[in-house]
Protein backbone atom coordinates (compact mmCIF):
# COMPACT_ATOMS: atom_id res chain seq x y z
CA UNK A 1 0.00 0.00 0.00
CA UNK A 2 1.13 3.53 -0.64
CA UNK A 3 1.57 6.03 2.18
CA UNK A 4 -1.61 7.77 1.07
CA UNK A 5 -3.60 4.54 1.14
CA UNK A 6 -2.35 3.67 4.62
CA UNK A 7 -3.22 7.14 5.83
CA UNK A 8 -6.71 6.82 4.39
CA UNK A 9 -7.06 3.50 6.15
CA UNK A 10 -6.08 5.11 9.47
CA UNK A 11 -8.52 7.98 8.91
CA UNK A 12 -11.19 5.39 8.20
CA UNK A 13 -10.49 3.53 11.42
CA UNK A 14 -10.62 6.72 13.48
CA UNK A 15 -13.87 7.85 11.84
CA UNK A 16 -15.66 5.09 13.76
CA UNK A 17 -15.24 7.01 17.02
CA UNK A 18 -17.51 9.79 18.18
CA UNK A 19 -15.50 11.34 20.93
CA UNK A 20 -11.94 12.14 21.92
CA UNK A 21 -11.91 9.48 24.60
CA UNK A 22 -12.49 6.65 22.16
CA UNK A 23 -9.93 8.15 19.80
CA UNK A 24 -7.37 8.32 22.59
CA UNK A 25 -8.15 4.78 23.65
CA UNK A 26 -7.63 3.60 20.09
CA UNK A 27 -4.38 5.52 19.83
CA UNK A 28 -3.20 3.84 23.05
CA UNK A 29 -4.10 0.47 21.47
CA UNK A 30 -2.11 1.33 18.35
CA UNK A 31 0.83 2.23 20.57
CA UNK A 32 0.93 -1.37 21.72
CA UNK A 33 1.48 -2.55 18.12
CA UNK A 34 4.44 -0.23 17.58
CA UNK A 35 7.46 -2.06 16.10
CA UNK A 36 9.80 -1.62 19.05
CA UNK A 37 13.28 -0.27 18.67
CA UNK A 38 16.07 -2.64 19.72
CA UNK A 39 17.68 -1.76 23.04
CA UNK A 40 21.05 -1.13 21.39
CA UNK A 41 19.51 1.79 19.48
CA UNK A 42 17.76 3.26 22.51
CA UNK A 43 20.54 5.78 22.96
CA UNK A 44 20.50 9.50 23.73
CA UNK A 45 21.54 10.16 20.11
CA UNK A 46 18.29 8.61 18.90
CA UNK A 47 16.04 10.66 21.20
CA UNK A 48 13.87 13.15 19.37
CA UNK A 49 14.32 16.62 20.82
CA UNK A 50 11.30 18.74 21.60
CA UNK A 51 9.19 16.09 23.28
CA UNK A 52 8.23 16.23 26.95
CA UNK A 53 8.37 12.46 26.98
CA UNK A 54 11.25 10.46 25.54
CA UNK A 55 10.89 9.17 21.98
CA UNK A 56 13.55 7.02 20.35
CA UNK A 57 13.49 6.31 16.64
CA UNK A 58 15.73 4.09 14.55
CA UNK A 59 15.68 3.66 10.77
CA UNK A 60 17.36 1.16 8.49
CA UNK A 61 17.18 0.26 4.82
CA UNK A 62 15.63 -3.01 3.69
CA UNK A 63 16.51 -3.12 -0.02
CA UNK A 64 15.18 0.21 -1.26
CA UNK A 65 12.69 0.70 1.55
CA UNK A 66 13.07 2.33 4.92
CA UNK A 67 12.00 0.47 8.06
CA UNK A 68 11.36 2.39 11.25
CA UNK A 69 11.30 1.18 14.83
CA UNK A 70 10.62 3.36 17.85
CA UNK A 71 9.60 3.56 21.49
CA UNK A 72 8.47 6.13 24.03
CA UNK A 73 8.17 6.25 27.81
CA UNK A 74 4.72 7.87 27.49
CA UNK A 75 1.75 5.87 26.25
CA UNK A 76 -0.01 8.59 24.22
CA UNK A 77 3.25 9.58 22.58
CA UNK A 78 3.82 5.93 21.74
CA UNK A 79 0.44 5.90 20.01
CA UNK A 80 1.30 8.99 18.00
CA UNK A 81 4.65 7.66 16.84
CA UNK A 82 3.00 4.31 16.04
CA UNK A 83 0.53 6.04 13.73
CA UNK A 84 3.32 7.93 11.98
CA UNK A 85 5.48 4.85 11.58
CA UNK A 86 2.60 2.78 10.27
CA UNK A 87 2.21 5.27 7.44
CA UNK A 88 5.94 5.74 6.72
CA UNK A 89 7.58 2.40 7.41
CA UNK A 90 8.45 0.04 4.58
CA UNK A 91 8.20 2.88 2.07
CA UNK A 92 10.74 4.33 -0.32
CA UNK A 93 12.67 7.30 1.13
CA UNK A 94 11.56 9.60 -1.70
CA UNK A 95 7.90 8.77 -1.01
CA UNK A 96 8.41 9.57 2.68
CA UNK A 97 10.03 12.89 1.77
CA UNK A 98 7.11 13.75 -0.53
CA UNK A 99 4.34 12.58 1.84
CA UNK A 100 2.13 15.06 3.65
CA UNK A 101 0.76 14.47 7.12
CA UNK A 102 -2.64 16.15 6.88
CA UNK A 103 -4.27 12.91 7.98
CA UNK A 104 -3.28 13.73 11.58
CA UNK A 105 -5.72 16.59 11.40
CA UNK A 106 -8.41 14.33 9.96
CA UNK A 107 -8.16 11.78 12.75
CA UNK A 108 -8.98 14.48 15.28
CA UNK A 109 -5.51 14.94 16.67
CA UNK A 110 -5.12 18.40 15.22
CA UNK A 111 -4.15 19.92 18.55
CA UNK A 112 -1.04 17.74 18.53
CA UNK A 113 0.13 19.36 15.31
CA UNK A 114 0.96 22.71 16.87
CA UNK A 115 4.70 23.32 16.65
CA UNK A 116 4.71 24.49 20.26
CA UNK A 117 2.92 21.42 21.57
CA UNK A 118 5.01 19.66 24.18
CA UNK A 119 4.55 16.21 22.63
CA UNK A 120 6.78 17.11 19.73
CA UNK A 121 4.69 15.54 16.95
CA UNK A 122 6.14 18.08 14.56
CA UNK A 123 9.65 17.11 15.68
CA UNK A 124 8.80 13.45 15.14
CA UNK A 125 7.64 14.07 11.56
CA UNK A 126 10.74 16.13 10.91
CA UNK A 127 13.01 13.40 12.28
CA UNK A 128 11.37 10.65 10.19
CA UNK A 129 11.73 12.78 7.08
CA UNK A 130 15.35 13.57 7.93
CA UNK A 131 16.08 9.84 8.02
CA UNK A 132 14.42 9.55 4.61
CA UNK A 133 16.55 12.38 3.23
CA UNK A 134 19.73 10.80 4.61
CA UNK A 135 18.97 7.38 3.15
CA UNK A 136 17.81 8.86 -0.14
CA UNK A 137 21.23 10.44 -0.51
CA UNK A 138 22.82 7.08 0.31
CA UNK A 139 20.70 5.30 -2.32
CA UNK A 140 21.87 7.71 -4.98
Amino acid at each position, binding site marked *: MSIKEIQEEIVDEFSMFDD*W*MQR*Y*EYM*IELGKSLPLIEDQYKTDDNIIKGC*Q*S*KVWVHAELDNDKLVFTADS*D*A*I*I*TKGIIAILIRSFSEQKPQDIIDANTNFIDEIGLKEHLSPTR*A*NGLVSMIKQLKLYAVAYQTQLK
Partner: protein
Amino acid sequence: MNDTFNVSSIRRDFPILSREVNGKPLVYFDNAATSQTPQQVIDVIVDYYSSYNANIHRGVHALSQEATDKYEQARHTIQKHFNIAKAHEVIFTSGTTHSINLVANGFSALLLSGDEIIVSALEHHSNIVPWQMLCERTGAVLKVIPMNLDGELLMDAYQNLLSTKTKLVFCNHVSNALGTVNPIKQIINKAHEVGAAVLIDGAQAAPHIKADMQELNVDFYTVSAHKMCGPTGAGMLYGKEEWLNKLPPYQGGGEMIAEVTFEKTTYADLPHKFEAGTPNICGGIAFAAALDYMNGIGFQTIAEYEHELLSYATEQLLTIDKLKIYGTAKEKTSVISFNIEGLHPYDIGSILDKLGVAVRTGHHCAQPIMDFYKIPGTIRASFSFYNTKDEIDILVEGVKRAQNMLQ
Protein backbone atom coordinates in the same frame (compact mmCIF):
# COMPACT_ATOMS: atom_id res chain seq x y z
CA MET B 1 -11.16 32.52 58.32
CA ASN B 2 -12.59 35.87 57.42
CA ASP B 3 -16.40 35.43 57.35
CA THR B 4 -16.76 37.71 54.38
CA PHE B 5 -14.69 35.41 52.12
CA ASN B 6 -17.00 34.17 49.41
CA VAL B 7 -15.31 32.22 46.66
CA SER B 8 -18.29 32.44 44.28
CA SER B 9 -18.24 36.20 44.36
CA ILE B 10 -14.44 36.24 43.98
CA ARG B 11 -14.70 33.99 40.93
CA ARG B 12 -16.96 36.55 39.29
CA ASP B 13 -14.02 38.98 39.36
CA PHE B 14 -12.09 36.69 36.96
CA PRO B 15 -13.71 36.67 33.50
CA ILE B 16 -11.47 33.85 32.23
CA LEU B 17 -12.84 31.42 34.84
CA SER B 18 -16.17 31.28 33.04
CA ARG B 19 -14.73 30.03 29.76
CA GLU B 20 -14.74 26.49 28.46
CA VAL B 21 -11.82 24.36 27.29
CA ASN B 22 -12.45 21.35 25.04
CA GLY B 23 -16.16 21.75 25.72
CA LYS B 24 -15.69 21.54 29.50
CA PRO B 25 -15.67 24.33 32.09
CA LEU B 26 -12.10 25.46 32.65
CA VAL B 27 -10.50 24.16 35.84
CA TYR B 28 -7.34 26.24 36.17
CA PHE B 29 -4.72 24.58 38.36
CA ASP B 30 -1.59 26.05 36.79
CA ASN B 31 -1.45 29.04 39.10
CA ALA B 32 2.19 28.49 40.01
CA ALA B 33 3.07 29.12 36.36
CA THR B 34 0.90 32.20 36.05
CA SER B 35 -2.17 33.40 37.92
CA GLN B 36 -5.34 34.74 36.35
CA THR B 37 -6.22 38.43 36.25
CA PRO B 38 -9.26 39.98 37.93
CA GLN B 39 -11.43 42.52 36.13
CA GLN B 40 -10.22 45.20 38.56
CA VAL B 41 -6.67 44.81 37.21
CA ILE B 42 -7.81 44.45 33.59
CA ASP B 43 -9.70 47.75 34.04
CA VAL B 44 -6.52 49.48 35.21
CA ILE B 45 -4.68 48.23 32.10
CA VAL B 46 -7.48 49.41 29.81
CA ASP B 47 -7.67 52.73 31.64
CA TYR B 48 -3.94 53.31 31.24
CA TYR B 49 -4.01 52.88 27.47
CA SER B 50 -7.37 54.66 27.14
CA SER B 51 -6.65 57.66 29.34
CA TYR B 52 -3.05 58.52 30.18
CA ASN B 53 -0.55 56.51 28.13
CA ALA B 54 2.62 58.61 27.96
CA ASN B 55 6.32 58.28 28.59
CA ILE B 56 7.29 59.02 32.16
CA HIS B 57 9.79 61.18 34.03
CA ARG B 58 10.62 63.41 31.10
CA GLY B 59 7.60 65.07 29.55
CA VAL B 60 6.46 68.54 30.56
CA HIS B 61 2.95 67.77 29.43
CA ALA B 62 0.00 66.72 31.55
CA LEU B 63 -0.29 63.12 30.36
CA SER B 64 3.35 62.42 31.06
CA GLN B 65 2.98 63.88 34.54
CA GLU B 66 -0.13 61.81 35.17
CA ALA B 67 1.56 58.60 34.03
CA THR B 68 4.65 59.43 36.11
CA ASP B 69 2.53 60.07 39.21
CA LYS B 70 0.64 56.79 38.81
CA TYR B 71 3.88 54.87 38.21
CA GLU B 72 5.52 56.36 41.30
CA GLN B 73 2.35 55.75 43.31
CA ALA B 74 2.61 52.12 42.22
CA ARG B 75 6.15 52.03 43.58
CA HIS B 76 4.82 53.29 46.92
CA THR B 77 2.06 50.67 46.95
CA ILE B 78 4.69 47.97 46.42
CA GLN B 79 6.93 49.55 49.06
CA LYS B 80 4.12 49.52 51.58
CA HIS B 81 3.01 45.99 50.77
CA PHE B 82 6.47 44.53 51.36
CA ASN B 83 7.25 46.94 54.21
CA ILE B 84 10.28 48.33 52.44
CA ALA B 85 12.10 51.17 54.22
CA LYS B 86 12.69 53.42 51.22
CA ALA B 87 10.77 53.78 47.95
CA HIS B 88 13.99 53.86 45.91
CA GLU B 89 14.82 50.38 47.17
CA VAL B 90 12.00 49.15 44.90
CA ILE B 91 13.40 48.58 41.41
CA PHE B 92 10.83 47.88 38.71
CA THR B 93 11.91 44.95 36.53
CA SER B 94 10.25 42.68 33.98
CA GLY B 95 10.00 39.98 36.63
CA THR B 96 12.01 37.62 38.77
CA THR B 97 14.35 36.37 36.05
CA HIS B 98 15.28 39.94 35.15
CA SER B 99 15.73 40.82 38.83
CA ILE B 100 18.04 37.88 39.46
CA ASN B 101 20.11 38.59 36.37
CA LEU B 102 20.46 42.21 37.44
CA VAL B 103 21.92 41.15 40.79
CA ALA B 104 24.08 38.38 39.30
CA ASN B 105 25.49 40.78 36.73
CA GLY B 106 26.21 43.37 39.41
CA PHE B 107 28.05 40.86 41.55
CA SER B 108 30.50 40.02 38.79
CA ALA B 109 32.18 43.29 39.70
CA LEU B 110 32.33 42.35 43.38
CA LEU B 111 33.45 38.71 43.35
CA LEU B 112 36.95 37.32 43.23
CA SER B 113 38.16 33.94 42.10
CA GLY B 114 37.70 31.44 44.94
CA ASP B 115 34.74 33.26 46.49
CA GLU B 116 31.75 31.05 47.09
CA ILE B 117 28.08 31.29 46.18
CA ILE B 118 25.54 29.03 47.84
CA VAL B 119 22.27 28.04 46.16
CA SER B 120 19.64 25.58 47.35
CA ALA B 121 18.84 22.24 45.76
CA LEU B 122 15.26 23.46 45.32
CA GLU B 123 16.00 26.11 42.75
CA HIS B 124 14.25 26.94 39.50
CA HIS B 125 16.56 27.03 36.47
CA SER B 126 16.34 30.81 36.43
CA ASN B 127 17.93 30.75 39.86
CA ILE B 128 20.74 28.37 38.88
CA VAL B 129 21.87 29.46 35.44
CA PRO B 130 22.66 33.14 36.23
CA TRP B 131 24.89 32.02 39.12
CA GLN B 132 26.65 29.43 36.97
CA MET B 133 27.31 32.19 34.44
CA LEU B 134 28.50 34.45 37.25
CA CYS B 135 30.89 31.72 38.47
CA GLU B 136 32.24 31.27 34.95
CA ARG B 137 32.91 35.00 34.69
CA THR B 138 34.51 35.43 38.09
CA GLY B 139 36.03 32.08 39.03
CA ALA B 140 33.72 31.89 42.04
CA VAL B 141 32.55 28.45 43.18
CA LEU B 142 28.92 27.31 43.37
CA LYS B 143 27.86 25.22 46.41
CA VAL B 144 24.48 23.56 46.84
CA ILE B 145 22.38 23.15 50.01
CA PRO B 146 21.04 19.57 49.81
CA MET B 147 17.47 18.53 50.62
CA ASN B 148 15.76 15.50 52.14
CA LEU B 149 13.10 13.28 50.55
CA ASP B 150 10.30 15.49 51.86
CA GLY B 151 11.77 18.36 49.86
CA GLU B 152 13.12 20.24 52.88
CA LEU B 153 16.56 21.87 52.92
CA LEU B 154 19.12 20.36 55.27
CA MET B 155 20.01 23.24 57.51
CA ASP B 156 22.97 21.52 59.17
CA ALA B 157 24.53 20.97 55.77
CA TYR B 158 23.89 24.63 54.99
CA GLN B 159 25.66 25.66 58.18
CA ASN B 160 28.68 23.58 57.11
CA LEU B 161 28.81 25.20 53.68
CA LEU B 162 29.01 28.70 55.14
CA SER B 163 32.40 30.27 55.65
CA THR B 164 34.13 33.60 55.25
CA LYS B 165 34.54 32.67 51.56
CA THR B 166 30.75 32.79 51.15
CA LYS B 167 29.77 36.02 49.47
CA LEU B 168 26.24 35.29 48.35
CA VAL B 169 23.39 32.96 49.26
CA PHE B 170 20.44 32.39 46.91
CA CYS B 171 17.35 30.52 47.78
CA ASN B 172 13.70 30.60 46.84
CA HIS B 173 11.19 31.48 49.51
CA VAL B 174 8.86 28.78 48.16
CA SER B 175 9.87 25.99 45.76
CA ASN B 176 7.99 26.14 42.45
CA ALA B 177 8.20 22.40 41.86
CA LEU B 178 7.27 21.15 45.33
CA GLY B 179 5.70 24.05 47.20
CA THR B 180 8.12 23.82 50.15
CA VAL B 181 8.26 27.01 52.21
CA ASN B 182 11.93 27.42 53.07
CA PRO B 183 13.12 28.71 56.47
CA ILE B 184 14.43 31.90 54.91
CA LYS B 185 14.69 33.86 58.15
CA GLN B 186 17.19 31.31 59.42
CA ILE B 187 18.96 31.18 56.04
CA ILE B 188 19.34 34.96 56.02
CA ASN B 189 20.58 35.21 59.61
CA LYS B 190 23.18 32.50 59.19
CA ALA B 191 24.48 34.05 55.97
CA HIS B 192 24.79 37.41 57.66
CA GLU B 193 26.86 35.86 60.44
CA VAL B 194 29.60 35.22 57.85
CA GLY B 195 29.05 38.55 56.09
CA ALA B 196 27.37 37.12 52.97
CA ALA B 197 24.55 38.85 51.09
CA VAL B 198 21.28 37.01 50.56
CA LEU B 199 18.90 37.08 47.62
CA ILE B 200 15.53 35.42 48.13
CA ASP B 201 13.45 34.56 45.07
CA GLY B 202 9.92 35.37 46.18
CA ALA B 203 8.18 34.53 42.90
CA GLN B 204 6.26 31.56 44.32
CA ALA B 205 5.83 32.97 47.81
CA ALA B 206 4.44 36.41 47.03
CA PRO B 207 1.00 35.14 45.89
CA HIS B 208 0.53 33.40 49.24
CA ILE B 209 2.70 35.09 51.86
CA LYS B 210 3.06 38.79 52.58
CA ALA B 211 6.79 39.06 53.15
CA ASP B 212 8.12 41.88 55.34
CA MET B 213 11.48 43.05 54.00
CA GLN B 214 12.57 44.87 57.14
CA GLU B 215 11.61 42.07 59.46
CA LEU B 216 13.36 39.50 57.24
CA ASN B 217 16.38 41.81 56.99
CA VAL B 218 16.99 40.32 53.53
CA ASP B 219 19.40 42.00 51.11
CA PHE B 220 17.51 41.28 47.88
CA TYR B 221 14.03 39.90 47.19
CA THR B 222 12.39 39.31 43.81
CA VAL B 223 8.75 39.15 42.73
CA SER B 224 6.87 38.60 39.44
CA ALA B 225 3.54 40.42 39.10
CA HIS B 226 1.97 37.76 36.85
CA LYS B 227 2.08 35.16 39.61
CA MET B 228 -0.07 37.37 41.83
CA CYS B 229 -2.99 38.52 39.68
CA GLY B 230 -0.92 41.10 37.81
CA PRO B 231 0.28 41.29 34.20
CA THR B 232 3.24 39.45 32.64
CA GLY B 233 6.45 41.37 32.06
CA ALA B 234 6.32 43.30 35.33
CA GLY B 235 7.95 42.65 38.66
CA MET B 236 10.26 44.03 41.26
CA LEU B 237 13.67 43.73 42.70
CA TYR B 238 13.92 44.83 46.29
CA GLY B 239 17.45 45.67 47.31
CA LYS B 240 18.84 47.26 50.44
CA GLU B 241 20.07 50.73 49.58
CA GLU B 242 23.66 49.94 50.62
CA TRP B 243 23.75 46.93 48.28
CA LEU B 244 22.08 48.67 45.35
CA ASN B 245 24.65 51.43 45.66
CA LYS B 246 27.47 48.90 45.53
CA LEU B 247 26.21 47.23 42.34
CA PRO B 248 27.09 48.77 38.97
CA PRO B 249 24.22 49.54 36.55
CA TYR B 250 22.92 46.56 34.61
CA GLN B 251 21.87 48.14 31.33
CA GLY B 252 22.77 51.48 29.80
CA GLY B 253 20.14 53.74 28.32
CA GLY B 254 17.71 56.54 28.98
CA GLU B 255 16.48 57.29 32.50
CA MET B 256 19.54 55.72 34.20
CA ILE B 257 21.92 58.62 33.59
CA ALA B 258 22.63 61.88 35.40
CA GLU B 259 24.96 63.44 32.86
CA VAL B 260 26.34 62.17 29.58
CA THR B 261 29.31 63.42 27.61
CA PHE B 262 31.43 61.35 25.25
CA GLU B 263 34.14 61.32 27.91
CA LYS B 264 32.06 60.17 30.85
CA THR B 265 28.57 59.39 32.02
CA THR B 266 27.45 59.71 35.59
CA TYR B 267 24.64 57.50 36.67
CA ALA B 268 21.32 58.50 38.09
CA ASP B 269 20.43 57.87 41.71
CA LEU B 270 18.37 54.91 42.83
CA PRO B 271 16.04 53.55 41.60
CA HIS B 272 16.62 55.01 38.13
CA LYS B 273 20.18 53.71 37.93
CA PHE B 274 18.65 50.26 37.35
CA GLU B 275 15.68 51.33 35.25
CA ALA B 276 17.21 52.06 31.86
CA GLY B 277 14.92 52.84 28.96
CA THR B 278 11.16 53.23 28.91
CA PRO B 279 9.84 50.79 31.49
CA ASN B 280 6.68 48.69 31.43
CA ILE B 281 4.69 51.64 32.78
CA CYS B 282 1.28 50.05 32.49
CA GLY B 283 2.66 46.81 33.94
CA GLY B 284 4.02 48.57 37.02
CA ILE B 285 0.74 50.37 37.63
CA ALA B 286 -1.26 47.16 37.11
CA PHE B 287 1.11 45.30 39.46
CA ALA B 288 0.15 47.73 42.22
CA ALA B 289 -3.53 47.30 41.32
CA ALA B 290 -3.09 43.53 41.73
CA LEU B 291 -1.58 44.06 45.19
CA ASP B 292 -4.52 46.30 46.09
CA TYR B 293 -6.92 43.63 44.88
CA MET B 294 -5.28 40.87 46.90
CA ASN B 295 -4.95 43.05 49.98
CA GLY B 296 -8.66 43.80 49.64
CA ILE B 297 -9.29 40.11 50.24
CA GLY B 298 -6.48 39.85 52.77
CA PHE B 299 -3.38 37.65 52.63
CA GLN B 300 -4.29 35.93 55.89
CA THR B 301 -7.69 34.99 54.45
CA ILE B 302 -6.10 33.86 51.18
CA ALA B 303 -3.52 31.71 52.99
CA GLU B 304 -6.14 30.05 55.20
CA TYR B 305 -8.46 29.25 52.30
CA GLU B 306 -5.62 27.95 50.12
CA HIS B 307 -4.42 25.79 52.98
CA GLU B 308 -7.90 24.31 53.20
CA LEU B 309 -7.78 23.55 49.44
CA LEU B 310 -4.32 22.01 49.83
CA SER B 311 -5.42 19.71 52.67
CA TYR B 312 -8.57 18.68 50.82
CA ALA B 313 -6.71 18.01 47.54
CA THR B 314 -3.93 16.08 49.29
CA GLU B 315 -6.47 13.92 51.10
CA GLN B 316 -8.54 13.29 47.96
CA LEU B 317 -5.60 12.60 45.65
CA LEU B 318 -4.12 10.11 48.11
CA THR B 319 -7.27 7.98 47.79
CA ILE B 320 -6.09 7.18 44.26
CA ASP B 321 -4.26 3.87 43.94
CA LYS B 322 -0.52 4.13 43.17
CA LEU B 323 -0.46 7.92 43.47
CA LYS B 324 2.65 9.41 45.02
CA ILE B 325 3.06 13.02 46.12
CA TYR B 326 6.50 14.62 45.81
CA GLY B 327 7.26 17.34 48.30
CA THR B 328 5.79 16.59 51.68
CA ALA B 329 7.42 19.35 53.68
CA LYS B 330 5.69 20.45 56.86
CA GLU B 331 5.48 24.01 55.54
CA LYS B 332 3.94 24.11 52.07
CA THR B 333 1.97 26.45 49.86
CA SER B 334 -0.95 25.18 47.78
CA VAL B 335 1.09 23.15 45.28
CA ILE B 336 0.89 19.39 44.79
CA SER B 337 3.40 17.61 42.59
CA PHE B 338 2.47 13.99 41.98
CA ASN B 339 2.83 10.94 39.78
CA ILE B 340 1.00 7.68 39.29
CA GLU B 341 3.32 4.71 39.49
CA GLY B 342 4.04 3.31 36.03
CA LEU B 343 2.47 6.20 34.13
CA HIS B 344 4.13 9.17 32.45
CA PRO B 345 3.05 12.61 33.73
CA TYR B 346 2.64 13.75 30.13
CA ASP B 347 -0.04 11.10 29.49
CA ILE B 348 -2.05 12.11 32.55
CA GLY B 349 -1.69 15.81 31.73
CA SER B 350 -2.90 15.28 28.14
CA ILE B 351 -6.04 13.52 29.29
CA LEU B 352 -6.70 16.09 32.02
CA ASP B 353 -6.44 18.80 29.36
CA LYS B 354 -9.14 17.03 27.37
CA LEU B 355 -11.30 17.22 30.49
CA GLY B 356 -10.76 20.97 30.79
CA VAL B 357 -8.28 20.70 33.67
CA ALA B 358 -5.12 22.80 33.24
CA VAL B 359 -2.12 21.39 35.12
CA ARG B 360 1.56 21.59 34.44
CA THR B 361 3.52 18.47 33.54
CA GLY B 362 7.23 18.05 33.12
CA HIS B 363 10.27 19.05 35.11
CA HIS B 364 8.93 22.51 36.06
CA CYS B 365 12.26 24.12 35.15
CA ALA B 366 13.75 22.31 38.11
CA GLN B 367 15.57 19.34 36.57
CA PRO B 368 17.93 18.87 39.55
CA ILE B 369 14.89 18.16 41.75
CA MET B 370 13.55 15.61 39.25
CA ASP B 371 17.01 13.99 39.10
CA PHE B 372 16.99 13.83 42.90
CA TYR B 373 13.76 11.83 42.86
CA LYS B 374 14.90 9.92 39.71
CA ILE B 375 11.72 10.79 37.79
CA PRO B 376 11.23 12.44 34.38
CA GLY B 377 8.81 14.96 35.82
CA THR B 378 5.60 15.30 37.74
CA ILE B 379 2.05 16.49 37.33
CA ARG B 380 1.75 19.72 39.26
CA ALA B 381 -1.58 21.10 40.40
CA SER B 382 -1.29 24.53 42.01
CA PHE B 383 -4.27 26.18 43.65
CA SER B 384 -5.25 29.78 44.07
CA PHE B 385 -7.82 31.48 46.29
CA TYR B 386 -10.31 31.50 43.37
CA ASN B 387 -10.28 27.70 43.08
CA THR B 388 -12.86 25.47 44.75
CA LYS B 389 -13.20 22.03 46.28
CA ASP B 390 -15.60 21.14 43.46
CA GLU B 391 -12.79 21.79 41.00
CA ILE B 392 -10.51 19.55 43.04
CA ASP B 393 -13.14 16.81 42.74
CA ILE B 394 -13.04 17.24 38.94
CA LEU B 395 -9.24 16.88 39.03
CA VAL B 396 -9.41 13.74 41.16
CA GLU B 397 -12.07 12.18 38.91
CA GLY B 398 -9.98 13.16 35.88
CA VAL B 399 -6.86 11.50 37.24
CA LYS B 400 -8.85 8.32 37.95
CA ARG B 401 -10.26 8.37 34.44
CA ALA B 402 -6.81 8.87 32.93
CA GLN B 403 -5.50 6.01 35.04
CA ASN B 404 -8.26 3.71 33.77
CA MET B 405 -7.58 4.64 30.17
CA LEU B 406 -3.83 4.23 30.43
CA GLN B 407 -3.53 1.04 32.43
